[in-house]
């Protein structure tokens, strides 16, 4: 492969003659509106030099609802593509030969179903499933801890994960059946050691389930180990992240050898893909984010011995809303420049023999190993999910992170330091600086699914569903009947409903009840101190007769819980009584809770973009029930013009990521409660 075609002659001739390493797979996480629109997007992305596909599904598809389900209101085609049946899957990959694609699907609770649809479409295309390459994310543990698109209880989820692995290991041998994720843990606040320990404990739980579940003969376990891949995060502290990746590699080697007796070294290799950190990407001065993204990319590429196999980058406007094609292209170009212009791929591992790096790696390995043993002592990762232990630790880590930013201890340029800025030409037209999804897409999808159901052979679909159900009841592998159902025209909602009916549903612990806030460190700035707020709330309690009570609600299918959790914790910390019921509640439930709990203020958190559909419903229902005087505030990813529209509909305040000083939000809430209580008493 020739690489020195550029104008600069490299100083060191031997280096120039070196074989360049093959670069990682470059992907862009994409999908929205409809299968046809997303297909168009994938084609242009491939033309731009992207080498793998990464499918973003919408939330109804991820949580197993058809577009016409009540819970899908406002969510269809919004943050990803809706795939409701084989027709959609066909359209999504029209003209894209599946034997030549490497497709990553961010799909979890409904992973068996989406993989079944993919396999069914491949067969239609005449492609042998043995040639299919790609990944189903299929890690439910991190769904309970961070991502939120789980459906079933943990043990049942683990069984489904194991089903996909057991099926693919022989039937779709090049497929990565599960991507054990630490990415989402960091996005929920995890420290590097927590990321290492929780993800590896998850991998252990999956492999143990396969070993004891008898789905795979003991002799095949090493082969299964070789198919387990990981999905990791890389934050701005890229030296530490480099060490984390080396620690992952070392720990995985040890665990697979010691615990699963894998002798073949190639099967013990830590294979991973990456999306770099998005939690640290900012709303103020968003143009700086592209620089953060580039630095973050270094953490997972610099070290040849621990380099990512596949990489996808967020966009500069991450904290504003969904990226447009150009925004994603800019990030893709960053990858291409690193891989093809720089000399990175000409070298062996550049950290080999570094005493500093090795010492840091060893420290992380030791700390993570201790944590893994601790989780084991608590009965394993599933038990630690169910008891709420792990979620609570994450909520605490995130609180510490936020506190460090509030106090200025952790510098975030453009946010808590160097905030002075010239006008940014990229955000001159703020509403136009993000992708907006056609609101008609939902209605079109509803019409389409009705047509699909009317047009199919209903008896065949029903028979396939009955078979699926029987397989679930008998504990058989879910994949074969799912593939049959895919071919019979069954829909995503029907597939999931059958499983829901047999297995039941689950609500994960919120992690906030027992979470402790670390009071140490530098003082947090803001209009008022915590002590002042506590005093004010105590005073307000005297005038109201009881403590101010707040309901924090997360309506819709949105799983972004960080903001709601931190607001709930902070509100408790300044003296509110707080009711928080976790993610995925309906507007009706929020209104019922507000009434029964007798709250003084309602805080709604929505980041998935369905605020214009859901918030007005809540406000209206409150009014109908005679609770119109209770102030409603909203937080999340709310574009400026939407914020104004919501205020016009009666929302008292709207907060976005730029409002990072929680104390200031608390000051507002106290003010609102005092004002509304005064007005209500006077009325």
């Amino acid at each position: 492969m020739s690489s020195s075609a550029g104008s600069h002659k490299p100083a060191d001739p031997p280096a120039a003659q070196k074989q360049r390493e093959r670069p990682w797979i470059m992907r862009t996480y994409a999908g929205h509106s409809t299968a046809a629109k997303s297909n168009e997007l994938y084609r242009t992305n491939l033309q731009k030099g992207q080498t793998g596909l990464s499918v973003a599904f919408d939330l109804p598809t991820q949580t197993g609802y058809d577009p016409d389900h009540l819970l899908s209101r406002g969510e269809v085609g919004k943050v990803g593509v809706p795939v409701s049946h084989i027709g959609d899957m066909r359209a999504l990959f029209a003209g894209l030969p599946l034997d030549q694609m490497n497709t990553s699907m961010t799909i979890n609770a409904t992973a068996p179903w989406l993989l079944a649809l993919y396999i069914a479409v491949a067969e239609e295309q005449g492609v042998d499933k043995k040639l299919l390459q790609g990944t189903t994310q299929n890690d439910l543990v991190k769904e309970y801890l961070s991502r939120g698109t789980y459906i079933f209880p943990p043990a049942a989820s683990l069984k489904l994960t194991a089903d996909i692995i057991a099926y693919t290991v022989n039937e779709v041998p090049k497929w990565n059946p599960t991507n054990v994720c630490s990415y989402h843990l960091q996005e929920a606040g995890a420290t590097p050691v927590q990321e290492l320990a929780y993800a590896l404990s998850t991998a252990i739980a999956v492999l143990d389930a396969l070993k004891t579940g008898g789905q795979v003969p003991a002799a095949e376990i090493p082969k299964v180990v070789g198919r387990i891949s990981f999905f990791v995060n890389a934050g701005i502290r890229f030296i530490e992240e480099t060490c984390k990746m080396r620690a992952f590699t070392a720990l995985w080697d040890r665990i697979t050898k010691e615990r699963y007796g894998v002798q073949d070294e190639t099967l013990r290799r830590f294979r991973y893909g990456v999306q770099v950190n998005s939690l640290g990407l900012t709303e103020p001065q968003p143009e700086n984010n592209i620089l953060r993204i580039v630095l973050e990319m270094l953490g997972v590429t610099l070290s040849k011995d621990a380099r990512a196999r596949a990489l996808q980058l967020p966009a500069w406007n991450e904290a504003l809303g969904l990226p447009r094609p150009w925004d994603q292209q800019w990030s893709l170009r960053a990858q291409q420049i690193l891989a093809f212009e720089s000399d990175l791929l000409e070298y062996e591992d550049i950290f080999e023999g570094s005493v500093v790096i090795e010492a840091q790696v060893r420290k992380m390995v030791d700390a993570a190993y201790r944590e893994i043993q601790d989780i084991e002592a608590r009965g394993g990762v599933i038990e630690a999910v169910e008891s709420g232990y792990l979620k609570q630790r994450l909520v605490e880590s995130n609180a510490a992170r936020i506190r460090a930013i509030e106090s200025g201890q952790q510098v975030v340029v453009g946010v808590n330091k160097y905030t002075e800025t010239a006008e940014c030409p990229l955000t001159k037209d703020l509403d136009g600086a993000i992708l907006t999804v056609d609101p008609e897409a939902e209605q079109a999808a509803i019409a389409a699914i009705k047509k699909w159901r009317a047009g199919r052979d209903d008896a065949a679909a029903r028979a396939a569903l009955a078979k699926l159900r029987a397989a679930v009841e008998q504990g058989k592998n879910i994949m074969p009947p799912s593939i049959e159902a895919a071919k019979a025209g069954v829909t995503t909602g029907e597939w999931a409903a059958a499983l829901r009916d047999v297995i039941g549903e689950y609500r994960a612990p919120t992690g906030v009840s027992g979470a402790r806030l670390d009071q140490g460190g530098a003082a947090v700035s803001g209009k008022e101190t915590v002590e002042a707020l506590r005093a004010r709330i105590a005073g307000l309690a005297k005038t109201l007769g009881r403590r101010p009570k707040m309901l924090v609600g997360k309506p819709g299918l949105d799983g972004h819980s960080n903001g709601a959790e931190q607001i709930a914790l902070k509100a408790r910390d300044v003296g509110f009584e707080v009711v928080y019921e976790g993610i995925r509640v309906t507007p009706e439930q929020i209104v019922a809770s507000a009434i029964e709990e007798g709250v003084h203020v309602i805080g709604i958190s929505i980041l998935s973009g369905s605020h214009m559909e859901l918030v007005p419903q809540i406000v209206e229902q409150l009014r109908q029930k005679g609770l119109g005087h209770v102030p409603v505030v909203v937080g999340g990813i709310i574009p400026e013009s939407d914020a104004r529209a919501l205020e016009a509909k009666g929302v008292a305040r709207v907060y976005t990521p730029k409002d990072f000083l929680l104390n200031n939000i608390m000051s507002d809430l106290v003010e609102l409660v005092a004002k509304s209580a005064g007005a209500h008493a006077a009325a």
Partner: protein
Amino acid sequence: MPPREAEPAVKLAAGVAAGDKVAVAAALNLVEDRRAQTRNAVDALLCALRTLRPPGYGHRVGLTGPPGVGKSTLTAALAREYRARSLRVGVLAVDPSSLRSGGALLGDRARMAFDPQDEGLFVRSLATAGDAGGLAYAANAGVAVLATAYDRVLVETTGVGQTETDVEHVVDTVCLVIQPGSGDVLQFIKAGIMEIPDVIVVNKGDHGRLAQRAASDLQGALDRLRQAGLGGEQSAWTLPVLVTSARDRTGIDALADALQAHLASRTPSERAEKRSRGAVAWAVSLLSRQHGEHALDLLGGAQAVRAQATDALARGATPIGAAASLSERYLAALRAG
């Protein structure tokens, strides 16, 4: 009762009795109100409420036990069971307040997802609000409100310290929830808390053999205690030990039956007797909350105060009223002394 408070109280109480959720919530807001100027309104409400139901009406059940054993999940399962039996259910879930900030995260509700349209089910969270280890300030009155609106009232306590004994005064039947392999049982027997529960549940029965073993160990220990004549109060009721899985909703119907059987094992006069003792304890606790233990001393000791409260209640006062007259007497004694 001051007439000014009577009229709105009657209206509110009627709304409560009709099961109007907005009225129930408003009544609960009122009884949580600690301002001196609302005390008469609370008193009036309690007066109005008790005219609307016969004295022995309904069944109040307390669920207590150590943190994390599944009290909330079990409460939800039990509530569903009652709904399936066409009984209307009110739930009071008590969580601890932070001593430092006074704030609280009321986490039980998150474990009780219900149909928001169901008019026959009401869940309210209460914070202990600085009453370290005790039940919430408004728990007594809250139960009185819910018991007027609903056929069954379930009270989930924080499960630490004093609450086990406090809850006894608030409900008809105390259900102690424990989990397998926790060693809690022995602790309870040692601490004498075994005197309090009327039903014992080993939850997380899905842990299989472990749960069954815990239940039979416990049954054995109870039998030995009983043979040694240490089995608590002498009555026809034998403390049952049940195994449930709140998660898988197994054993819940048997639990509902056992709770019902406990209620049925008491004669109407025994039940009324227990509720009056609860009212006395409520009045006395209001007094000591307001003035501290000193008030009890000055009024001749706990026993004498209880007698005085019993007297006031017998003459028709609500516990609020009884506490108020005790308080007056205490203040007079203070002035005199």
